[in-house]
């Protein structure tokens, strides 16, 4: 591969207490690609994302070793962890509308970063809500509570919030488990548009979703990478590893 590396992971190990959940994995993510991450529950997908933006720091018993580089900068040595987190947009599995207004939900991250001009904030709020395909539904009630939206709307609000700090990398962690298929399709359309200016890591339990959207897909199982290759290989009849074939075709998992 000649494309520039956006994220480099080298021998990443993660243990909660004495239980190791990621056993030394190594991979790269290229700029402006969509990387699908598939694998059964408990295989370390969410933990991997939390190592990327270092929110793993908030789990006291977690112990991380190995190297994670974003833009060539090692995340565990970074001077500005908040800047790092703003570089990475994170969408959690369950939609979380913060109990503040819709406007404040989206303007929260820019404000934390230090932006305070109303005009700038207004522009960002509108841009992000449009990108998340939510603007038309909420533009008349930006001051109502984020928690009062429906589940699907809250998930799009979460995406808008993840975009609000203008990340270079967008991580989606099983974003579709709490929303209906129609909303899922709309968000997938959104993702296709976003890929032109950001790298997307799509963790999903729906292998077909990874097949539809991703350029490359990684099969993570029990904290090990079983296979990471382009979709053409992973979803072919002859992936390198038999287990990938079985998982993708629903024979186990």
């Amino acid at each position: 591969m000649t494309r520039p590396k956006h994220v480099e992971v080298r021998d990443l190990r993660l243990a909660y207490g004495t239980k190791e959940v990621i056993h030394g994995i190594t991979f790269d993510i290229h700029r402006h690609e969509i990387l699908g991450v598939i694998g059964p529950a408990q295989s370390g997908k969410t933990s991997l994302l939390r190592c990327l933006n270092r929110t793993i720091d908030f789990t006291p018993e977690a112990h991380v070793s190995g190297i994670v580089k974003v833009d060539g900068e090692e995340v565990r040595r970074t001077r500005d962890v908040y800047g790092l987190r703003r570089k990475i947009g994170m969408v959690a599995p369950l939609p979380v509308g913060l109990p503040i207004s819709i406007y404040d939900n989206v303007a929260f991250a820019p404000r934390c970063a230090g932006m305070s001009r109303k005009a700038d904030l207004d522009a960002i709020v509108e841009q992000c809500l449009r990108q998340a395909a939510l603007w038309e539904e909420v533009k008349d009630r930006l001051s109502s509570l984020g928690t009062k939206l429906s589940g699907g709307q809250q998930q799009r609000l979460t995406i808008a919030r993840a975009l609000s700090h203008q990340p270079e990398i967008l991580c989606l962690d099983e974003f579709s488990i709490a929303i209906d298929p129609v909303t899922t399709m709309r968000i997938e359309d959104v993702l296709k548009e976003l890929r032109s200016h950001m790298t997307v890591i799509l963790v999903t339990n729906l292998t077909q979703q990874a097949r539809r959207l991703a350029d490359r897909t990684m099969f993570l199982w029990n904290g090990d990478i079983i296979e990471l290759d382009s979709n053409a290989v992973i979803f072919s009849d002859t992936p390198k590893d038999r287990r990938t074939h079985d998982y993708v075709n629903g024979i186990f998992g």
Partner: protein
Amino acid sequence: MKPDTPALFTETALVRRKYRQETVAKWVFFVMAAAMIIPLLLIVGYLMVKAAPSLTLGFLLDVPVRGMTEGGIWPAFVGTIYLVFISLAISAPIGILAAVYLNEYARDNWFNRVINLAVINLAGVPSIVHALFGLGAFVYAARFGYSILSASLTLAIMTLPVIVASTREALASVPRSFREACWNVGATRWQTIRAVVLPNSISGILTGVILQVSRAAGETAPIMFTGAVFYKAIEKGDLFAYGLHEQCMALSMHLYTISTQVPGVKESIPYATAVVLLGSVLLVNAAAIALRVYMRSRTKW
């Protein structure tokens, strides 16, 4: 067992005994619960009846006369208000911030376990030991003398655990997912607390502050030797009667004094004082409970 025989559902002697046992158990426990509530109601009722001759607005606004054997309780009432609010002004910020530390910043290590232990211990220190501490530390060592300041500081430290405990509970009730959502977008811990945690726990914190008011108002021992006096002459109805470095009367202390130390007090006066003290404390508590119930009914998530 044959599931299709109707005999399964008829009462056997064993089943009847089980039901009887259950009913008996229920009533025994009910009586136990009632045994602590009914005496209380009777006592409150009795206090009210005995106090009735003195319970007027004038009693509240008057000053005690004839060696405290007659008259009202105004100086004591005002003194209590002073003590409560000054102690509150000291302990509420410290207590709230301490709870924020314990709930939001502290990791689970030995040092923070020691802090937890200290809070629990502070709650368990006998009130008279607080009084000794106040006397040794504020009256003598800090040279504040016997004053409202010394008494309020003593009260503040004594009631600190109340507010720490209730604030922690309020903070802990804010779901962790909100905090994680904030951390994910690059908010610092404090930005997270300011934007999401505090606004959603403010009612619980307020409840704690109100509970602290009622606790501070009722305490006697800690103020007895640090700033409260048996008698101090002030103007009837004067709200700004005391200075920070003066001694004051207090309702709880006044009740103790007139019921044990002063002979020949008109019979209904101690009862009325007790009713006023009890009534204020319970009223404040009821307000806290009402606030909590109201806020719980309109949670935002």
